[in-house]
Each structure stands twice: as C-alpha cells, then as structure tokens.
C-alpha cells in the first residue's frame, strides 16, 4: 500500500512535471507567438504598403524642388490663405499663450515705401531656402531639408533651443509655448518644440497642392522649380520673380511678383 501510494505519488509528480513541461512549451510558444506576431503583421503591412503606395515608399526625390510663385499684384484676400493654413494644420488652438506667443505658419505682411507712399500686402511663410540658416544652426539636425527642398522640423528630435528662430531671416518660425490638445494627425505639435510652415508636405506627398495655394484663387502657383515645363517655371521665365532678402543668397523656393 505504501509502495503503491508512493508509486501513485511518483506518478502524480511525473504527471505534474509532464504537465508543467507541457505548460512551459505551450507558454513559450504563446510568448514567441506574441513576440513574432506584431513583426509579421508589420511586415505584411509594410509589404502591402510597398505594393499599394509605391510613391510614398520611394520618399522625396532630389529631382524635384517644390516652390511657389506669389503674385502680389492680384486682388486677393490673403487672409483666406492664413485661414486655410490654420485649418489644414490645426493652428490657433492655444488657450494660454499671449498673442506674441501664438504660432503662425503664414502671415500677411503690409509693406509701405516711406519715400513714395506705395503700399502692398503679401503672405510670408517659411521660404524653404536652398541654404537654410535654420538647418545650419540646429544642433541636433531636427531642422532639416528634404531632398525635394521642403524645410521641416523633426518634432522628435527638436530640443527647443530656439537657435533656428534666431537664425531665420524671415521670422518664419514659432515656438509652442503651451500644452496643446486636439492636434491634426498630419501636423503633430508639441509643447517646447519649434515649428513652421511645412508646405503641407502631407498633401504634396498625396499629390495635392498646399492649402494656401488652394485658397489663393490662383494668386499662388505651386510647382516644381526644377522642371522647365512646369507652370511655375514658365511663369518665372516669362515674368520673372523676386525673393525676399535675395541679398542673403539663401535662394528661397518662394518667389514673388510685384514686390
């Protein structure tokens, strides 16, 4: 009896060892599955994405240089461009900031010649320079220029030193002074980071025009400055255009007529 009992105990313990071994194997398989599954899903997603959206996968190309030509002689309410920009990028949702602390990607500047009395208005945004001082001075490389000439801030890399704001000759950049809520998916904005016009890069990558261009009733022409057959290149060739502070030789991508 005792032996039997002991045998039973042994059998039981063997069974429990067996069971725990089985549990271990099943558990390991489950853990491995959990660990691998997301990678598989990610791979499949990436693979599907690469098949479906080839252009996005290729990334920005240095063969193009996106630019704008602003015709300031046209009778346009430039504030519509500002409104379109704010709507597209989800700006103007600051609750605590003073007026001089609020973000503006694009603004309407009134210019008057003191001597002649001639006055005009023009929209000014990031000029997407070929030689951007903001990119030169950024200590971490958060300020960057895409191969297609669009100047951007990597919000994950920006440490909020504001040196780029000191360096920009166009005052095109803003600093986020407070915690923001309800941000647009296309434009993540964070307290303590610098931001500026990104030429609606998300729209461009989808083959659309920037929001301000769309709202300008044809007064802003958007296109590829590198392509001699693009509308913008033809207009610039025919009528010319000026850059703000061209003397600094930064070669901005934003050109103006009538300034």
């Amino acid at each position: 009896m005792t032996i039997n009992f002991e045998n039973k105990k042994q059998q039981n313990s063997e069974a429990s060892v067996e069971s725990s071994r089985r549990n271990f194997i099943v558990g390991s398989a489950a853990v491995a599955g959990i660990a691998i599954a997301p990678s598989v899903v990610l791979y499949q997603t990436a693979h599907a994405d690469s098949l479906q959206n080839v252009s996005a996968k290729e990334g920005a190309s240095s063969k193009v240089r996106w630019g704008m030509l602003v015709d300031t002689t046209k009778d346009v309410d430039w504030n519509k461009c500002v409104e379109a920009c704010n709507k597209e990028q989800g700006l103007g949702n600051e609750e605590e900031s003073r007026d001089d602390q609020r973000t503006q990607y694009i603004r309407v500047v009134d210019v008057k010649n003191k001597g002649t009395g001639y006055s005009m208005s023009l929209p000014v945004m990031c000029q997407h320079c070929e030689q951007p001082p903001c990119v030169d001075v950024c200590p971490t490389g958060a300020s960057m220029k895409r191969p297609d000439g669009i100047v951007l801030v990597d919000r994950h890399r920006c440490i909020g030193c504001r040196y780029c704001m000191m360096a920009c000759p166009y005052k095109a950049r803003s600093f986020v002074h407070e915690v923001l809520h309800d941000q647009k998916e296309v434009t993540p904005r964070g307290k303590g980071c610098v931001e500026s016009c990104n030429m609606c890069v998300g729209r461009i990558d989808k083959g659309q025009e920037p929001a301000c261009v769309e709202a300008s009733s044809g007064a802003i022409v958007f296109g590829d400055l590198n392509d001699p057959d693009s509308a913008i290149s033809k207009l610039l060739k025919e009528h010319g255009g000026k850059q703000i502070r061209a003397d600094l030789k930064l070669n901005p991508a934003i050109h103006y007529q009538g300034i």
Partner: protein
Amino acid sequence: MKKLHFLEVEGNTKGFYTFLGLFGLISLIGILSAYYMEHHGHWVTGMSNQVVWGTPHVFAIFLIVAASGALNVASISSVFAKTAYKPLARLSGMLAMALLAGGLVVLLLDLGRPDRLIVAMTKFNFTSIFTWNIILYSGFMGIVGIYLWTMMDRPYNSLTKKAGMVAFIWRLILTTGTGSIFGFLISREAYDSALLAPMFIIMSFSFGLAFFMLVLMGSFKYTQRELGDYTVNRLKNLLGVFVAAVLYFVVIYHLTNLYSADHRGISAFVLAGGGIYTFLFWVVQIVLGSLLPLFLLYGPTGKNRTMIGLASALIILGGLAQLYIIIVGGQAYPMQMFPGMEVSSSFYDGMVASYAPSLPEILLGLGGFGVTLLLVTMAVAALKFLPASLADAVADPHGK
C-alpha cells in the same frame, strides 16, 4: 618668498553650513522655477516668438563667458610663468569649472525640451555652432579637470605647464564659440559682426576676473585667511585694464555699425531712443558697470578692499546689462525683412518687440549663480584649493 601651503576650509562649522544652505536654497529656487516653466510651457515667461531668448540666456551666457575668463589667473601662472599668480591657480581652475556648470544648468533648463538632453549629446550637426559648443564645453570640463590634477598631485606637477597651455588655447576657442553663437547670425543687425567673437573674449577676461576677485576676497575673509595687498593690487590693476579693453571694443562695435548705413539702425537704437536698452547701456553698462569701477579701482579708493569688491560687483552688473542689450535688445530690434520699408503684420513685423522678464526667469538665472557658488563652497572644503595665507610675505616673489 615663504613656502606656500594650501588648506581645505573647515567644513564642520556654522559659517560653512550657512553658506552651503544659502547657495543650496538659491539653486533649489532656480530649479523649482525651471520646473514651473517647463510644466506649464514658456507662456508663463516674458519670452515670445519675437524674443525667443530671454533672461535665462543672459545669465547662462554671462556665467559661461565668465567661466573661461576665470581661468585666466591660472593661465597667467602656468602659461606666462608669472609666479605671483601661482597661489591662485587652483582656485582659478576650480572656479572656471563651477561657473561653466552653473551656466550650463541654466541653459539646459531653459530648453523647450530639457528631457531630450540625450538627443543633444548624441545627434550632432557639425555646421551648428551649438554642436561645437557642446563639444567645447565638455572638453573644457575635462581639460581643466586634468589641469587641476597636475597642479594638485605632486608627481604630475611637471605636466602643469603643458596642461595649462592646452586649457588656455581651449578656453580661447570656447569663448570664440560662445561669441560666434551670435556673430554667425546674418539675419539680425545686432549680431551680424565678426567683432562679437573677440569682444566676447575680452568680456570674459573682465567678467571672469571680477567674479574671481569676489570669490577670493570673500573666501579669505570668511575663513580668516590673510590676503595681502600685493596680490589684491595686481589683480585689481589687471581687472581695470580688462574693463577698459571691453569699453574699447564696445566703442569700435558701435562705430563700425554707425559707419555702414545698413547697420546704423541697431546702434542708433541702443545708443538713443531704445528705451530700456538705452537706459541699460548708458546708466548700467557704461556708467555703473565700466566708468565707476575704473574710478574705484584706479582712483583714491584703489586700496580700499570694500571699494574693490564694490567695483567687481558693479562690473558683473554691467556685464549682465551688456549681455541683456546684446541678447534681448538684439532680438527686440525689428528684423529688416524689407530694408528701408515700413512693415507691419499680425506677427509683430517692423516693430520693437516688447519683453519683460518674468520672476521665474530671473530666479532660474540667479539659480545659476547659486549652483556655481554651491560647487565652489563644497570644493574648497573638500580639497586644497585655497592657500592657507596670501600675506605679502607669502605671495610676493620679491618679498622677504
């Protein structure tokens, strides 16, 4: 010349703990102010999209500039072999490190994202002066640390001259880097000048030595050590020369600006019609921070310790005013996007930007001084930085 002895400050005294507590409290208030600003965001400060660098930068850059200047005393001893300065070399090196630490704390805590310091330490962009400065500042700490070691560890004394030479060259490059933060900015009239780099070097000589004088006289007074006229007079005469040299650079800076039409605006703004900036220039920087100290140092009060201390404090005050004018005034003055035109916009184009420092900004800046002095207090108690005596008989190489 009698044999020189160095001695730690007795740490277990009421006076020591009083200073430790005082400087610790100033540091703590500074850090809490930074936390307040970071927690809420910069909207609680006077800074804006027009004046992006405010009072914390004024203090931070003052401390960083003073750091390299504080090292001068050691350099004169090791590099230029002036034995009169040898007893002061250890304090000079240590103070330089403490000032730099204080300045960097303020600079770091005023970042929009100080939590991303690791990004700044690992992702470099070598066209940025800031990136170079991160390397220059870290290098300064290491090099001056080694320099101090060679001074304080007898077997390595023979290396002091070499280490001192490296530290001296490094500090010149470092201050050039600090001045170049501004000098390389083409977009703003106040900064677009190659003069800023050498001007920052001479400013560092003046501010650093003024701070050194106060720490030297203060520490000797409160530890009842003798400080003879020989040492003090040499230092205060040198300090006067530096103050005059800064004045010279200020004159040349404004003269060159006034000479060229496209830079005339900013100097006219600072010299006349700039409101607070004009007041700070003439009253605080020039009269209180330069002319009065020169009078106190070289005039009939030149041997009075209190007056020498007052002159040093005024030089520091004038230096802060000078940096406030350069940093804040330079941003407040409107950027010339359309030169010669009248400009206006919702983004404050064409107008003088308003800026008033908020209390947390000032407290963070003062916290930088607190951190520096806290480190100095701990250092003089931990290691032999201060000579037991600098009586004339000890300090004067030609004395009996």
